[in-house]
C-alpha cells in the first residue's frame, strides 16, 4: 500500500523546469533524494507495522498452526475473536477497564485544571516551591511510595480489590496533567484574563468562561493521556486489584490470560490485539489533540 501511495505522487516533486544543466542536476539530485528518503521511510514503516501484521495473522490461525513455521493462516479462524470473549472473566475486564479509564480521566481533568491555572497565572509566595513539588511528583517512580500506599488502602481503608485505590488519588490532581495544562496556560496572554476581570468576572468565572474555551486542545490532550495511562496501567492493578479477579482490568488480565492459555497463542494474540484496539481507535479520532499534547510536553518551556 505504501508503495503505490508514494510512487503515484512522485512526479509532482519534479516540476518542469528551465533546461539549464545546473537545474537538471538539481532536479536529478532532488529525485534521488526523494527516492532515498522514501525508501528509508518504507523500511521504517515495515519495522513499525510488521509486528502488528504478524500478530494479526497469528490471531486468525488455528492453535496448532500458531506455533508452526508458516506465517499465513491456512484457515482463517475468525471465530478466535468470538472465543476470546467466552474466556471466563474476559468481558468483566473490559467493563472494569472502561470504568477505571473513564472515571480516572474525568477526575484527573476536573481536578487538575484549577491548580494548573493557579500555577500559571497567580503570583504568590511559594509558587516556585509548588511548581518544584509538581515536577518532583511527576518524576517520582510509582514504586517509591507503593508500600505505604498499599498499606494505607488495605489496612486502614480496606479498599484493595476495588478500583478505588486507583481512582481516588486522581481526584486530587495529577502532577503530569497539571504540568501540561500549566505549560499551555502560560501561552495565553494575560490581557485576555484582565479584560475578563474588568468585566467584573471573579477568578472562578474567568477560568470557566474565558480560559476553559481557550485551552480546549490542552484539555483534550490531558484527557487522552490520562485515558491511555489508565488503560495501559499494569502496576496499579497488579498491586490493588490482583486479589479480586472480578475487578481485573484488561491490561492486568491479559498477562494472566497468557499464563492460563499458554498453548493457545492464537487466542492470546486475538486478546492482545483487542486490548490494543481501543487506544488505537481513540487515537485515530483525536490524533491532532494528541500530537499537540506530546509536543507540548517536550518543546514548551
Amino acid at each position, binding site marked *: 500500500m*505504501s508503495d503505490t*501511495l508514494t510512487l503515484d505522487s512522485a512526479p509532482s*516533486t519534479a516540476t518542469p523546469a528551465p533546461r539549464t544543466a545546473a537545474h537538471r542536476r538539481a532536479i536529478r539530485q532532488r529525485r534521488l533524494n*526523494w527516492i532515498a*528518503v*522514501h525508501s*528509508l*521511510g518504507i523500511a*521504517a*514503516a515495515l*519495522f*513499525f507495522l510488521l509486528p*502488528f501484521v504478524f500478530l494479526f495473522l*497469528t490471531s486468525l490461525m488455528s492453535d496448532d498452526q500458531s506455533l508452526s513455521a508458516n506465517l499465513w493462516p491456512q484457515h482463517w479462524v475468525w471465530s478466535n475473536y468470538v472465543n476470546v470473549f467466552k474466556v471466563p472473566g474476559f468481558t468483566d475486564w473490559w467493563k472494569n477497564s472502561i470504568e477505571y479509564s473513564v472515571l480516572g480521566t474525568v477526575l484527573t481533568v476536573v481536578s487538575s485544571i484549577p*491548580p494548573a491555572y*493557579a500555577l500559571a497565572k*497567580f*503570583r504568590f509566595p511559594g*509558587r516556585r516551591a509548588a511548581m*518544584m*513539588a509538581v*515536577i*518532583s511528583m511527576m*518524576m517520582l*517512580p510509582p*514504586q*517509591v*511510595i*507503593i*508500600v*505505604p*500506599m*498499599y*498499606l494505607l488502602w488495605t489496612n486502614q481503608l480496606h479498599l484493595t480489590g476495588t478500583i478505588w485505590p486507583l481512582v481516588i488519588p486522581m481526584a*486530587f*490532581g495529577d502532577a503530569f496533567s*497539571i504540568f501540561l495544562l500549566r505549560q*499551555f496556560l*502560560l501561552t495565553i496572554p494575560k490581557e485576555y484574563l484582565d479584560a475578563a476581570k474588568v468585566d467584573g468576572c471573579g*477568578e472562578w468565572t474567568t477560568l470557566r468562561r474565558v480560559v476553559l474555551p481557550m485551552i480546549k486542545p490542552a484539555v483534550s490532550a490531558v484527557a487522552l493521556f490520562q485515558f491511555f495511562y489508565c488503560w*495501559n496501567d*499494569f502496576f496499579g492493578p*497488579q498491586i490493588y486489584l490482583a486479589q479480586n479477579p472480578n475487578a481485573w482490568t484488561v*491490561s*492486568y488480565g*491479559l*498477562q*494472566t490470560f*497468557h*499464563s492460563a492459555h*499458554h498453548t493457545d*497463542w492464537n487466542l492470546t494474540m486475538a486478546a492482545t*490485539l483487542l*486490548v*490494543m484496539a481501543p487506544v488505537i481507535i481513540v487515537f485515530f479520532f483525536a490524533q491532532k489533540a494528541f*500530537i499537540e499534547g506530546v509536543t507540548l*510536553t*517536550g*518543546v*514548551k518551556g
Partner: protein
Amino acid sequence: MSSTTAETGPSPTPSRARAGKSPVAPALRRKHRRELRVALAFLSPWLIGFAIFFAYPLISTVYFSFMHYDGYNPPNFVGTKNWTYILTENPYFWTAMRNTLWLVVVMVTLRVIFGLGIGTLITKIKTGAGFFRTAFYLPYLAPPVAATIGFAFLLNPGTGPVNHLLGELGLPQPGWFNDPNWSKPSLVLLALWGIGDLMVIFMAALLDVPTEQYEAASLDGAGPFQRFRYVTLPNIMPIIMFAVVTGVIQTLQYYTQAMVAGQVASGTLSGSGQNYFPGYPGGSTWTVPQLVYNLGFQSNDDIGAACVVSLVLFVLAMAFTSLLMRRRAGLMGDD
C-alpha cells in the same frame, strides 16, 4: 502547532517584577494577599493530594526502612539492618542496579538517537507524510503488556516468526528473551519500536529551527553534516536534554515490560509445581522497581527491605530531576 510552542509565555511587565521587592502600596499588598488566598483555594485539592499521596507515603517509606515488617505482625525497629542487608547482602540488589543502569545508558541513548533519526526522516518525507507519521507513531500507543506479550511471541527463538524468517534467510537466530545476553537488547528493541513520543517531539523541534540559519550555512558552503552539526544540533539541544532526562527517569521506573517479558519467555504458568525465578533468563531482566515488588509483595514479605530499595530509587530519580530543573530553568516557569 509550532507557533504556540515557540513562545515562552508572556514576559513579566516591569511593574510586576518590581512589586515583590520595593515598598508596596497598600492596595497592591491587599491585591497580593487576595491572590494568595484565591491561589490557595485553586490549589487546595492538589495540596491535599500532595500531602496524602506524596509527602505522607514518602515519610512513611523512610519510617518503614528502619523497621522489620512482614505485613502481618506489628513492625519493630531494627535500626539500619534493612539498609546493610540491601546494600551489602542481598544477592539481587546490585544485579538489579546494574541492569537498570545498563538500560538507562543503552536504552535512553539509542532511543534518543533513533527518535532523532525518525523525527528527521518524517520532516523530509514529502509524499504520504500522514501515512508515515501514523505508521511510525502507532506502536507507541500499544499497551505495554500487550506489546511485550506480542514481542515475546514474535521473538520466541523456537516458534516465533522472526527466527523462522531469519533462518530462511540464513541469518543467525538469536535467543532473544530467552538468552541472558540478548534479553536486555530485546527490551531495547521493544522500546525503539515505541519511539512515537520522541519522534513527535523531535519533529516539532526540527520544524522550529529557523530556515534562514540553514540558508546562511549553505551559502557558507556547509554540507549536510556540517549543517546538522552547527545549525540543527545547537537549536534542538534543549529538546535532546529534555528527552534524555525524562528518558532516564522513565527507565528508572522500567517495570512492566521487563517483568512480563521474563515471565512469558520463561514459559512459567500459574500451575502447580511450577517454579519461576524472577529476572529470567539468569537474572538478566531484574530491574530495581521489580525488586521493590518482589521484596514487598511477592514471596519475601519484607516490607522494610522493599522500602530501602524504594528510597534508593527515589534518590536516583530526584538526582536526575534536579538535573532537569537546573539545565532547563524554563521548565520551572516563565520568569
